[in-house]
């Protein structure tokens, strides 16, 4: 727990008051208020769709507020573009990484403000040198000259952070920077953040992980439904209170794990190999079991899951579902066998953002909804309505575009879409990444219910508490190899972290 260092609160660096923003019919922000002070790390928390990112984008000048006041360094400001806010000394790390895949990491960091020589020629050496220094400070191991295409989400996020740091800004806004990161990177990021705070900069930190908020921040502001709820010093608040303010009700325990009777093997992966990504991966998941795939980011867990489901090819090995061997590289076939994958990147892989909620939910079961060769919207809506209601998706109508939903609500739609296929084996990749506590505990309860109904569940998660709280067994992946297979009892944080960082088989 770090207490705010400055005894006398400095003059606010940035003040938002009663800020509102809506997109056509959707009210994203009703009255957002926020006060950032130099030398402080300020947490902003709230449910999915509370309006956090919208507030951030208004600060950045990407959106223009419909109402309210916005003061920066005591002056009322009105940023028209992100360039203006950048120029004024506000650096923003957005929730979704925004890199140019074809350009080198270095160019990405400096795009638009490259150091120049005579005749406006770009000084490539200077750029590279600075990036190398930055990466060293952040402990990032990415080749500054490689294109960012193909970087893992984690690596992308790290580049984003480096980019923001390099701006040397007075105000640094971070919208869920840790969502894709795991222990090591998070610690490094926090180190840098604290250093910046001590230099007297103002930081805004958005996260759904309370341990992080309490570990890093000194002040916390809560939002709900686009409205300002409260601001308090971390020292004099508690998780329960924050949760109540966020959700508007008490949340019963986060990991409602109920041990279900374990049945026979439903998913069996044998010697699965994809050169360059993972090697000789073998494991099995039984009915009623929740098996976690733990490990550091970049270990290759998502790749294993993707290959097993068939969206990625693999070079060797077999995948068997309920005794039937799957033909590789064919998701449709896998689905017919009762296999489902809730992917890691919901915006690109999970949901069709330009498509309505109903179309999204029924995309996986469209064949089943077809009657006499005809598929109607009526049929789709009927089936989608049920699912939307079951998950309390926050939207006015079934043709609301998935792209306009908040992260959490998008995730709900994606989960619904896959449960609609009535799978026997469910693979979930980072099921609660960027999801608020309320929804999170719902998802957890949902997972153990499903296990209780005899589904076999393979859960990939970078959140250790989640892994330990939910899993019956923990498989640890390190650099594309399974290095441990731990029972619920064996699975202590130490054991998992050890296996996640060492090649040797610790258990079995």
């Amino acid at each position: 727990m770090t207490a705010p260092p400055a005894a006398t609160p400095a003059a606010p660096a940035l003040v938002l008051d009663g800020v509102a923003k809506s997109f056509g019919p959707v009210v994203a922000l009703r009255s957002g208020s926020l006060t950032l002070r130099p030398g402080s790390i300020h947490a902003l928390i709230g449910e999915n769709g509370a309006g956090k990112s919208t507030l951030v984008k208004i600060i950045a000048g990407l959106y223009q507020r419909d109402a309210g006041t916005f003061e920066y360094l005591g002056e009322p400001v009105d940023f028209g573009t992100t360039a203006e806010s950048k120029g004024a000394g506000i650096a923003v790390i957005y929730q979704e990484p925004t890199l140019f895949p074809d350009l080198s990491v270095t160019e990405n960091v400096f795009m638009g403000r490259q150091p120049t020589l005579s005749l406006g020629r770009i000084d490539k050496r200077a750029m590279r040198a600075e990036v190398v220094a930055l990466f060293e400070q952040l402990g990032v191991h990415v080749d500054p000259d490689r294109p960012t295409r193909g970087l893992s989400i984690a690596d992308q996020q790290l580049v984003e952070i480096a980019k923001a740091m390099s701006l040397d800004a007075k105000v640094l806004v971070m919208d869920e920077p840790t969502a894709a990161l795991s222990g090591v990177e998070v610690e490094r990021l926090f180190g840098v953040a604290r250093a910046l705070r001590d230099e007297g900069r103002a930081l805004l930190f958005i996260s759904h992980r309370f341990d992080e908020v309490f570990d890093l921040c000194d002040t916390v502001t809560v939002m709900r439904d686009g409205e300002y709820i409260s601001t308090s010093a971390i020292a004099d608040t508690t998780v329960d209170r924050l949760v109540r303010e966020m959700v508007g009700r008490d949340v019963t325990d986060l990991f409602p794990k109920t041990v279900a009777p374990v049945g026979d093997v439903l998913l069996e992966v044998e010697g699965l190999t994809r050169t360059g990504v993972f090697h000789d991966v073998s494991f099995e998941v039984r009915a009623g079991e929740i098996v976690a795939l733990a490990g550091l980011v970049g270990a290759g867990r998502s790749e294993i899951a993707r290959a097993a489901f068939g969206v990625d090819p693999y070079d060797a090995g077999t995948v068997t579902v309920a005794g039937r061997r799957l033909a590789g590289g064919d998701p449709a076939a896998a689905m017919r066998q009762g296999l489902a994958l809730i992917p890691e990147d919901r915006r690109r892989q999970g949901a069709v953002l330009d498509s309505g909620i109903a179309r999204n939910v029924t995309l996986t079961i469209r064949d089943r909804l077809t009657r006499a060769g005809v598929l109607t919207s009526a049929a789709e809506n009927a089936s989608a309505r049920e699912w939307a209601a079951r998950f309390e998706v926050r939207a006015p109508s079934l043709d609301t575009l998935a792209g306009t939903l908040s992260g959490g609500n998008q995730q709900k739609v994606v989960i619904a879409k896959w449960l609609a296929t009535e799978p026997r084996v469910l693979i979930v990749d980072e099921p609660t990444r960027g999801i608020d506590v309320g929804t999170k505990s719902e998802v957890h309860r949902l997972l153990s219910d499903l296990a209780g109904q005899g589904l076999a569940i393979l859960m990939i998660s970078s959140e250790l508490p989640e892994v330990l709280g939910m899993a019956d067994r923990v498989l640890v992946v390190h650099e594309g190899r399974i290095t441990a297979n731990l029972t619920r009892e064996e699975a202590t944080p130490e054991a998992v972290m050890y296996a996640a960082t060492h090649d040797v088989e610790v258990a079995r």
Partner: protein
Amino acid sequence: MASTTLTPTTSRTYRDFQRPRWQRMLLTREMAVVAALIGVIAFASVAVDNFASSITYTYLFLDVAAILLIALPMTLVIVTGEIDLSVASVVGLSSVLTGTLYQAGLPFAVAALLAIAAGAVAGAINGFLVTVVGLPSLAVTIGTLALFRGLAVGLLGTTAITDFPDSWRDLVTNKIPGTPVPAIIVLVVVLAIVFGWLLHFTPFGRGIFAIGQSKEAAHFSGVRVGRTKLILFILSGTVAALAGIYYTLRYGSARGDNATGLELSVVAAVLLGGVSIFGGRGALHGPIAGALLIGAMASALRLASVTSDVINVITGTLLILSVVSPSLLAWAQSRRARRRGKKEGEDPASADPRPAQAADATVARRSTMGEEEQ
């Protein structure tokens, strides 16, 4: 799987659609084009001599039939976010093949069937290069545009094959008894129904839209992206070959340079019909109206002795307007919203939501209430 997964704390209710039915039906790009079509015909009927005669419609249909045919599969292709610029060359190729095979002594029907098969193969080549080799269709079909045209011209050289069996020629050009409508339109209508069903009322069609909106998400959802596109390119080639046979029969002459440049007319019709070039949005009746609109204007202007070139200017302008107008509207609306917002921003007592959003506000409110209840 039992539906007891999540016992909902509240049963939230959803409207099916944000806008009432008539709005969704009528306030669309497609309908705008249909309206324009009706407007043009109405105006020309009174203002242009000889337009209001039934023969006008016969010629109109004969002129646009080929474009209509090709526009059907092209719409599906473009909805997936791809494009096929080689269609006009396939028309030429199939025309030449029909001619040469027929001249070689095959019965016309057989020659035509072989030509259609060749069209399917041509489409398959495009599809293979796009889906299996993974090349951008714009580049690929610019290549096959030249390739297929070259084959057509090369096969026939200077000669143009003529004198096809009148029985067949009449089959496409003769009017349906009692109407000014030429027989070929029957084929157009049948295919329009088939493709309309395929695009709007089948799982396959849903897949097409999903691919156009997010290739990756579609792939993750078990949509067979490659196979779908391959099928569409094959359909595109096949129908183009069909159009080639129509061309041959209508003009009674098989030439390598038949339908040169037709691909742009087709694309123009499809885009004018409100299909997004980026894929993911569009409806089949739009392109049909678009093709007819261009044809009707052309015929009206020719009748008014306006030179052919004005038609191009108008087509081009329409095309631009059809894409610009929505964003202009959106821009105007946002401007209004901003101004309203700013005004309220001034006086402090305006934290509460504006009447304009009351409706949505209540939706959001109801939800939180629900959560507070238990």
